[in-house]
């Protein structure tokens, strides 16, 4: 009986020592859910949060790399624009001859080529100013022969990208776009669109939805042109609508230097019906009958270049240089914005690192073994085990058999 008792006691002791040995060897308080169910589920949660924070950090780093890249591209673009502006001021000076101006124009043309290259900059092989259309160059420059330059020069720069955001999740459910589309950054003038279709008696046939500069706008069945204008003006877009008194057509104007970007979606035909869209897919979807105004930065550069080629000193000095100012202003505006976003990401990252430190601390408290405590407990258990063995050995030794002859 005493022998059995010893076996039971030492079984329990070794069981406990095994548990302690496991904790000490792995450094973890619990290996199986049953050892501490609540602790394990906390560990799982903390582990998940840590993992998630790691991913957010990756997202932030990636986003920041792109923002910084875009920002330095804009810095280059700003420098070039500044140089062009200086050249323009030089060209507007009356002391220069026609030939001098042509030379300045040629230099500006070179800088224009450089500017187009910057607008088509790629990060890891993806265009950064093309919205979501990252695999193609967002700006297409078409060259035609110019008798002034005596060679093929850029006569038209078209935007082929879109307005799509490149979104990153930087904290739980917090999504930020880390790109700026080219039809905002590389625009210099406010855009406007004049439809040539008389919409005075137009009535929206069914509930429909259009998207203007990325923001969906709903029209209800029965809306007339006034309602359409109203709904557009009440939407959070930098586009204002009005009705042209001359022909009853709709006028769309941007309130800042961005392109007008209109889409009929979900089966809507409203914008096509009122002569804004042609029915083609974006980006070249504006109706050919509508007149559009408002130029890109490239248009501004081309204007100053062409005025210089044509020796139109007055235009160079007034309109063209004014256009350059607009261009510079817009680029600066987006540089500031990208800088602000970069700062925000820095702050987010700092918080992620802090959160992670805290979380690691909590996790460690939750599952790491207090080595000193564990070793003390192990020593105590060893002592108990030894004394149990010793006592039993003493007690079971003598039997009557030893004394019987």
């Amino acid at each position: 009986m005493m022998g059995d008792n010893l076996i039971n006691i030492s079984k329990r002791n070794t069981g406990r020592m095994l548990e302690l040995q496991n904790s000490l060897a792995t450094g973890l308080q619990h290996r199986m859910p049953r050892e501490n169910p609540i602790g394990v589920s906390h560990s799982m949660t903390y582990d998940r949060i840590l993992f998630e924070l790691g991913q957010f950090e990756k997202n932030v780093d990636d986003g920041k790399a792109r923002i910084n890249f875009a920002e330095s591209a804009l810095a280059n673009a700003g420098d070039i624009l500044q140089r062009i502006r200086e050249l323009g001021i030089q060209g507007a000076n009356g002391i220069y001859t026609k030939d001098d101006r042509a030379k300045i124009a040629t230099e500006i043309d070179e800088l224009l080529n450089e500017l187009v290259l910057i607008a088509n900059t790629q990060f890891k092989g993806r265009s950064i100013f093309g919205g979501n259309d990252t695999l193609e160059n967002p700006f297409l420059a078409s060259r035609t022969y110019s008798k002034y330059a005596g060679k093929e020069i850029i006569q038209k720069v078209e935007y082929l990208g879109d307005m799509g955001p490149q979104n990153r999740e930087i904290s739980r459910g917090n999504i930020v776009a880390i790109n700026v589309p080219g039809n905002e950054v590389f625009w210099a003038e406010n855009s406007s669109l004049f439809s040539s279709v008389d919409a005075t008696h137009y009535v929206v046939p069914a509930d429909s939805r259009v998207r203007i500069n990325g923001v969906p706008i709903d029209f209800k069945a029965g809306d007339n042109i006034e309602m359409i204008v109203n709904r557009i003006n009440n939407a959070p877009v930098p586009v204002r609508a009005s009705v042209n008194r001359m022909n009853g057509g709709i006028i769309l104007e941007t309130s800042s230097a961005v392109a007008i970007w209109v889409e009929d979606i979900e089966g809507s035909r409203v914008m096509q019906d009122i002569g804004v869209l042609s029915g083609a897919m974006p980006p070249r979807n504006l109706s050919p009958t509508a007149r559009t105004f408002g130029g890109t930065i490239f248009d501004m550069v081309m204007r100053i270049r062409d005025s210089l080629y044509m020796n139109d000193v007055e235009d160079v000095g007034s309109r063209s240089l004014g256009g350059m100012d607009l261009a510079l202003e817009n680029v600066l505006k987006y540089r500031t914005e990208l800088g602000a976003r970069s700062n925000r990401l820095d702050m987010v990252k700092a918080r992620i690192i802090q959160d992670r430190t805290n979380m690691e601390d909590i996790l460690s408290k939750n599952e790491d073994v207090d080595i000193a405590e564990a070793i003390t407990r192990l020593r105590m258990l060893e002592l108990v085990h030894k004394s149990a063995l010793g006592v039993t050995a003493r007690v079971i030794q003598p039997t009557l058999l030893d004394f019987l002859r």
Partner: protein
Amino acid sequence: MGKKGLITHQAAIQVTGHNVSNAQTEGYSRQKVTLEIFDPLYIPGLTRENAPGQIGQGVQVEKILRARDMLLEDRILSEKNGLSYWKSMSDWIYQVELIHNEPTDKSIMNTLDRFWASWQDLANNPEEIGSREAVREYGAALARHINYNFQALKSLRNNIEQAVQMRVKEINEIAKQIAKLNEQILRSEATGDNPNDLWDKRDLLVERLSGYVDIHIGRSDQDEFMVFIGGKHLVQGKHFEQLMLDRNPANEGYSDVRWEVDGTLLKLRSGELKAHLDARDVELKYQIDSLDRFAANLTDLVNTIHRRGFGLNLRTGLNFFMENPISPNPLGDYDFNRDGFVDGTALFRITGTHALNLDEVVGLQGAITLNDGIMVEYADTDRVTDILTKVNNAGSDIKMYISDEGTLMVKSDAPVLAISHLEDSGDFLVQYSGILRERGEAGAFDRGQVNMAEAVSEDFMVAPGGHPASWIRLDEHIAEEVESIAAATGTDTDGDGIPNLSMGAGNGDNALGIAGLRFEKVMIGGSETMNEYYAALIAGTGLRGESAQNENLNRDLIVENLVNLRKSISGVNIDEELVNLVKYQHGYAAAARFITKVDEMLDLLINRMM
């Protein structure tokens, strides 16, 4: 008289020897010789010889008793079945915990985290093939992990089934042996003997049996020793009943344990067999059902978003995980009773047509009828969220929540993953949310009828077939071509509600949408995220494992103490036996000396008197 002394002490020495040699035999109880005075020569009476006193006739063995406390015995029996119940339960849950392999970095939870993270990486680089490969790999790894855990749980369940079969065979064998022993004991008792060793053998068998099932012993009738399980006798004297295994097709072919005599179900409250049955039909079934539910929801949720998105190759409408509907019929018509004819409609999810606002007061009244006639009434002051809470807490296996698009989703939480019944006397499920097409009984959806898909919204998912956890894997389009993984969202330009124009290669919003599933409360009627659901499963398993282990340890101590107590009563103490041996040896020597003295006396009388 001397001979009697010799024989008696010889018998006593023999019993002592028997005790010493069986000191280590399991179930043996110490035997004790009771000595008794042999009846004196004369009985009192007038005819007795005129001599003083009665002359004694010596000693005889009255009986050989075994030292055993039957009350203690019964306590041990009743504690023992509790002990073996918790011991087996603890062992089975331990194996389940091993399968889940939490908390480590090689668990479903961890793979799930990596899966979500891979979608975020894809959102960062939607144009890159590398990040697409990662999504495919982690998706496949997650599916494989779920398959593996399913297989492991399933084979554990099969092992338990084998254990059940073995135990039932053993119980039958023990019942047979006890009945046989009863017969021998009865015969022996009839002659007035104490069949100590047979009793010991029977007690040992009964003790073993008490570990397997919760038995009651009937000792009231001297001639018929009875063993009861759940109020029915297993053994009655020399009669015994047998148990049989009956494969139950409704329980995936796992066996029910029934009485062979009348086919009724064996009623158990404790014991190892009960632990096996509980582990097989409660714990493991719950684990497998939970995994199935997890897999079915994962498939449906990821696919619903994935189908709306666009791949790099501009493909859209593809599933990410393969869907394996229970029925080839796209409307979910299914043959539930397997008689060859479709007899019902199996739908896992129905999504409404209108976007709802959780805090909006519905302003309608009516009553929603769910499965098993569970009714949920709503008043015109209820908000949408109030109605959902009522439905989700009504105890039915139908859960409702609001999808990320704001539409109402109705999902089945039952093990078969098919919505059983939906009916609304008011307009909440009908015009308000667009789940059902008609009010009242006429417009009710019922699993037990065909063509029911016509009664509900067009956006539904046919119930998944079999165990979703066993077959979840990537859709073959995704497995073959990573460019098909839909990272980009799209625009619906033609007004059919399905996007048909991709936002472009650089758009990762759809991938972000899928990654966002990880913190959306999509499980159990919108109360838990997928990760929380799984963590709760692990914590629950751990809690049950912990309590089983604690019960096991407690009962182990109790039984150990009782067994020690029994050992102190029935156990053989070698020292005591040696003392007895010496005592009886002396008795024997004294009796022998007595015989020599009598011999000497006779010698004197016969040989020296000449």
